[in-house]
C-alpha cells in the first residue's frame, strides 16, 4: 500500500460526505447504496464513522462529471480514467469525482463499471491511501471486475488504512452490548446482572477476524437487536442473523449481508412498522429503512432526524406498538416515545424506563413486540412485559425462542 506524501489523514473519527449529483446510468437509491457500502468497507476496519449530509459543505463531496470539470485533471471520455479523488485536506481535499462518460452499474457485468468497487477505491484516496502495487488489492490502480457480494477488504488495504487510522476502537469495533459492571437493579438479587467477568467479555475481534456465531443455546447468548419482519422474527448479533419463521420449523442462520449487502454488521436496534411494511435499523448515529430486501432511498439518515438531541449518539433498543402506533426508543436508563403517525417525538420524554416499565430498571439491549407483549432483552435474560396491564409477567433466557 502507499499513502500520499506526508501521509495526510482526517484528524477526526467522524467524517461527513455528501452526494452532489447522480449518474443517469443508475437508480438514485442504487448510487446511494453503492456509496454507503463503500464507506462501510472502510469504517468496518477503522475508528472512522461517516455521516451523510444533504446540504452544505461536507468533508468528502462526491460528484459525477465529464471532461473538464473545474479541477486540473479533466476526464478523458469512455474508458481510460474512470474517476479520481483527493487526499484529506480542506476545500477540494477528500472530494471524489466520477467520469460521467463511463457506464456506471450496480452489477459486476462487463459492460459497465461497478460503482461500489470504484467508489470504494476512490474513497480510499479520500481517506489518504495512495495506490498499491499488490495485484488484487482494492487500491490497485487498474479496475478489476469482481464479485461484490460479501466483498471483503483485502489485507493490504486493511494494513494501509490502519497505518493511517488504527483499528476500530474497542467500544465501536462492533457495537456489541458489552455491559460495563451494572449497579444492582430493581430485579431480585438472583436476577441482578453480575458484572461480566473478564473471561465473559465478548471476544475482542481484530478487524480482519469476525467473531464466531454463538451457539443457539449458549446460556450467555445476548443480542444487539431484534425485530419482527413480515411475520418472522430476526435476532441480530454482530454480523449474524437468527431467523425464526412461522413458515418453516427450526431456526435459519444467516448473515446480515446476505439480506442487505450494503449494511455492515453490528446493529444497535431495529423495529418494524408492519402497517408500512418497513423495518428500521440503527447503528451509531444513523438509521436505515428497509422494505424486505430493499433499502429505501435517502438512507442512512442521522438519528437527530427523529428528534434526538445531538447528545444522543446511539440508541440501545427500539420497539413499536402497533396498537398505539407509538415506537419506544431506549437509551441507557431512559426511553422516548415516537408517534409514527405524526413522525415526531412525543412531549414529556425522555422518561425513566423504571417509572413506566416496572421491573425493567436497566439498560435494554434489544426489544421485541409480539402478541401484545414487549420482550426486553438484557444480556442473557429477557423480560416479558404485558403492555396492556403494564406488568412484568415472565423472566427467561434470551435464547428461549430457539427451542432450546
Amino acid at each position: 500500500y502507499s499513502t500520499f506524501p506526508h501521509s495526510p489523514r482526517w484528524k477526526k473519527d467522524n467524517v461527513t460526505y455528501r452526494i452532489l449529483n447522480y449518474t443517469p446510468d443508475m437508480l438514485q437509491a442504487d448510487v446511494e447504496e453503492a456509496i454507503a457500502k463503500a464507506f462501510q468497507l472502510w469504517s468496518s476496519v477503522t475508528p472512522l464513522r461517516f455521516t451523510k449530509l444533504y446540504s452544505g459543505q461536507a468533508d468528502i463531496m462526491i460528484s459525477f462529471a465529464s471532461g473538464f470539470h473545474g479541477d486540473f485533471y479533466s476526464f478523458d471520455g469512455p474508458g481510460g480514467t474512470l474517476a479520481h479523488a483527493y487526499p484529506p485536506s480542506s476545500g477540494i481535499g477528500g472530494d471524489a469525482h466520477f467520469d460521467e462518460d463511463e457506464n456506471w452499474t450496480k452489477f459486476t457485468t462487463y459492460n459497465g463499471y461497478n460503482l461500489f468497487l470504484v467508489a470504494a477505491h476512490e474513497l480510499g484516496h479520500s481517506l489518504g491511501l495512495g495506490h498499491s502495487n499488490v495485484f488484487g488489492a482494492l487500491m490497485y490502480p487498474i479496475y478489476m471486475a469482481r464479485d461484490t457480494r460479501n466483498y471483503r477488504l483485502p489485507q493490504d488495504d486493511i494494513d494501509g488504512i490502519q497505518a493511517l487510522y488504527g483499528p476500530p476502537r474497542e467500544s465501536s469495533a462492533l457495537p456489541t452490548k458489552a455491559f460495563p459492571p451494572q449497579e444492582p437493579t430493581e430485579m431480585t438479587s438472583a436476577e441482578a446482572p453480575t458484572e461480566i467477568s473478564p473471561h465473559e467479555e465478548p471476544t475482542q475481534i481484530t478487524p480482519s477476524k469476525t467473531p464466531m456465531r454463538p451457539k443457539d443455546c449458549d446460556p450467555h447468548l445476548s443480542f444487539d437487536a431484534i425485530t419482527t419482519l413480515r411475520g418472522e422474527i430476526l435476532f441480530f448479533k454482530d454480523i449474524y442473523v437468527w431467523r425464526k419463521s412461522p413458515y418453516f420449523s427450526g431456526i435459519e442462520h444467516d448473515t446480515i449481508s446476505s439480506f442487505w449487502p450494503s449494511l455492515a454488521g453490528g446493529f444497535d436496534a431495529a423495529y418494524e412498522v408492519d402497517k408500512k411494511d418497513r423495518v428500521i435499523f440503527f447503528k451509531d448515529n444513523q438509521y436505515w429503512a428497509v422494505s424486505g430486501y430493499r433499502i429505501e432511498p435517502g438512507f442512512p439518515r442521522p438519528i437527530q432526524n427523529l428528534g434526538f438531541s445531538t447528545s444522543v449518539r446511539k440508541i440501545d433498543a427500539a420497539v413499536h406498538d402497533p396498537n398505539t402506533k407509538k415506537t419506544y426508543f431506549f437509551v441507557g436508563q431512559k426511553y422516548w416515545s415516537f408517534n409514527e403517525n405524526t413522525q415526531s417525538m412525543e412531549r414529556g420524554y425522555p422518561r425513566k424506563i423504571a417509572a413506566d416499565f416496572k421491573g425493567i430498571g436497566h439498560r435494554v439491549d434489544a426489544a421485541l413486540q409480539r402478541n401484545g407483549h414487549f420482550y426486553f432483552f438484557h444480556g442473557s435474560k429477557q423480560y416479558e412485559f404485558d403492555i396492556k396491564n403494564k406488568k412484568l409477567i415472565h423472566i427467561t433466557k434470551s435464547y428461549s425462542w430457539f427451542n432450546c
Partner: protein
Amino acid sequence: FPVVPEKEKEDIQLAKQYLENFYDFKEEKDSLFKSKNLDRMSKKIREMQSFFGLEVTGELNRRTLDMMKQPRCGIPDVRS
C-alpha cells in the same frame, strides 16, 4: 530516421500521456536532444513496468501498452 508508422505514433503518444498522468513524466518540448527525452521516457517506462510487475525493459512493448490501455483510477501511481 525510419518513418514511424501512424499506429506506432499513436501508441507513443498514448504512452507519453499515460506516463505524464501517472508517473510524473515531463517531456522537454523544446529539447534539442531527442535522445534525452527518449532516455527520460525509457526511465519512466521502467518505473511503470516495475510497479505493475511487468518485465522491466524500458521499451514500449505490447504488454506494457496493453497495461496502459486498461481502465483505471486517475490518481498518479507515483508522485514527486
